[in-house]
């Protein structure tokens, strides 16, 4: 009886913890060549204060997914064909442009790959932080100015008073990304979307920025969607990981699921194709042969089938559903792969096999 009650309680709190719920998001771009189906039905949930990593190669739809959440894709040629984006119980896709303005920067913020092109070169950095504060927090100019300096200090810029009076070109790459983070977090948003935030930076600076983001997340309790092509960057910070391929999430799970017990052959490929600094044995890299499909005419079956060693007849015929692949109750781990259909033959998991080999 009491167990039942606990169960109920758990369900309720779980519901309240959900910050973002994306359902069946489909986004297309109309081009001369035809309709590019960039995102083809994406579902995921994000809890408050949690970090979700979206991993995939260029053109897999990870950035388009993120930009659609904030309605930042240019329309036309872009078109959100269907779907729902629930933030704290409100469907953002039903919002008008004007209503979205109140969400952007205040409830959801975004930082981009190239901080030079996302900062305004003609405006002092301090003023760019003040902009959001004046708009969303109704601060006076002098209050906003103080807060801007405080934000620059928070993101670890030495000499924040002087830095606030400088322009973006006077900053180094790492400093610019810190300034972007200061702008993004100035209004204390519930969700921060970071689209390849460290890809343009050197590794030592990348470590600084990732450290800073983790630190600020703890302090401010912001949920983060981290979009990246680099599984290594994700290993440290993500709680949940969504692997995208050709416009769909092909696998979703906790970081442990994805790194230690991945189920989708594409995830296997991603993990086996990168060398590891900490591994001495000279294992040959296993590339994924071929290239991703053309999203103007995506295959009707599994988009990875053409590159998949384990592809069966059905894979080319029909798109697999999201199949739950974990036995335990902790979180959801699912893969879109026919191999986990009841009738499919069992295959060896090359990732767990390699781990065993390395541990020998």
């Amino acid at each position: 009886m009491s167990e039942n009650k606990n169960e109920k309680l758990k369900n309720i709190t779980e519901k309240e913890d959900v910050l973002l719920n994306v359902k069946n998001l489909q986004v297309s771009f109309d081009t001369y060549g035809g309709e590019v189906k960039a995102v083809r039905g994406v579902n995921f949930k994000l809890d408050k204060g949690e970090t979700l990593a979206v991993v995939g190669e260029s053109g897999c739809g990870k950035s388009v997914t993120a930009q659609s959440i904030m309605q930042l894709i240019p329309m036309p040629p872009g078109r959100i064909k269907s779907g729902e984006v629930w933030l704290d119980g409100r469907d953002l896709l039903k919002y008008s442009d004007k209503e979205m303005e109140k969400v952007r920067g205040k409830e959801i913020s975004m930082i981009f790959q190239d901080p030079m092109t996302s900062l305004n070169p003609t405006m002092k950095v301090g003023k760019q932080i003040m902009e959001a504060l004046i708009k969303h927090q109704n601060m006076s100019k002098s209050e906003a100015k103080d807060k801007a300096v405080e934000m620059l200090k928070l993101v670890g810029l030495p000499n924040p008073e002087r830095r606030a009076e400088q322009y973006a070109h006077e900053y180094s790459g790492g400093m610019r990304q810190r300034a972007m983070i200061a702008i993004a977090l100035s209004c204390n948003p519930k969700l921060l979307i970071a689209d390849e935030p460290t890809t343009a930076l050197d590794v030592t600076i990348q470590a600084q920025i990732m450290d800073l983001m983790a630190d600020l997340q703890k302090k401010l309790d912001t949920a983060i969607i981290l979009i990246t092509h680099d599984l290594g960057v994700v290993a440290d910070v993500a709680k949940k990981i969504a692997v995208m391929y050709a416009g769909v999430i092909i696998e979703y799970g906790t970081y442990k699921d994805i790194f230690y017990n991945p189920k989708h052959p594409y995830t296997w490929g991603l993990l086996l194709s990168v060398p590891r600094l900490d591994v001495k044995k000279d294992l040959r890299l296993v590339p994924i042969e071929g290239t991703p499909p053309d999203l103007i005419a995506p295959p009707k079956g599994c988009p990875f089938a053409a590159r998949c060693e384990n592809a069966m007849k059905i894979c080319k015929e029909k798109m697999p559903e999201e199949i739950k692949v974990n036995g335990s109750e902790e979180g959801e781990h699912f893969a879109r792969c026919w191999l986990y259909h009841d009738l499919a033959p069992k295959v060896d998991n090359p990732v767990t096999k390699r781990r065993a080999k390395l541990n020998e």
Partner: protein
Amino acid sequence: MNETLISVRDLKKYFTVRGGKTLKAVDGISFDIHKGETLGLVGESGCGKSTAGRTIVRLYEATGGEIIYKDTNINKLNKKQLKDYTRHAQMIFQDPYASLNPRMTVTDIVGEGIDIHNLYKGMERQKRIYEILELVGLSREHANRFPHEFSGGQRQRIGVARALAIEPDFIVADEPISALDVSIQAQVVNLLKDLQDELDLTYLFIAHDLSMVKHISDRVAVMYLGSIMELTESNELYDNPLHPYTKALMSAVPIPDPDVSRAKKRIILQGDVPSPIDVPTGCKFQGRCPIAEDICRVEEPALREVLPGHEVACHMVKKP
């Protein structure tokens, strides 16, 4: 085995920038490349690794120092002799989009070197081009197409084919995989490794990705602000990094294994790389170095061998 193919001695390449200032992109580097090996050159952006590579194939004229290829000083060659050298030393570039002429077909691109060096003519030439294309994993149907018809990975294969067409024995690969997606990177890296075994090639592999450099290289040189900080075998560099910069660099590399990665202690370097126009006095790393002492601010440490085959440029590293 350890026959030296190329010997670089105190190589310098300076540029004059606006305001009459001097940018010391490469500031006195020395190393040997052995025949049949891969020497990796790593460092962060602006450290001079690409300039070093370009100077070694003489795309840039060196400001000072020597590049000795099989007893010939490359810097002293005249135009005609240089053509002979380029027959042996070729380059693969980073950006497979910018480095292929969009108005030339694959045959033209791969055949250009063959024509310049008068290696094959007519049917022989075409046969050779088909051979090379097949060697790099393309097919003869691709020969009459233009670069825009290919994906990034395939374009890089064309770049490799162009470099290999004149049968060089030394190749400078300048970030050959950085512009490619991870799954495609492995294809190109495996291709480069296989070609090395098959054709007995020697590589200078320039990249910023330490994991990849360690994977492909026999020995690795770490550059910082135009100087080599550490040079040793790739496994030794990972097991026993001596220079504080190498240590920080190693610790910052993300590892795709959460347990290892989360347990790892990171050395987070403060600040940014200084501008190569305004290089600090003494050791170039002293401003960011956690263990710098007075001598580091005054005197620049020389690269010296502290363990067999392990060279490091740091005052604080003592010989055991």
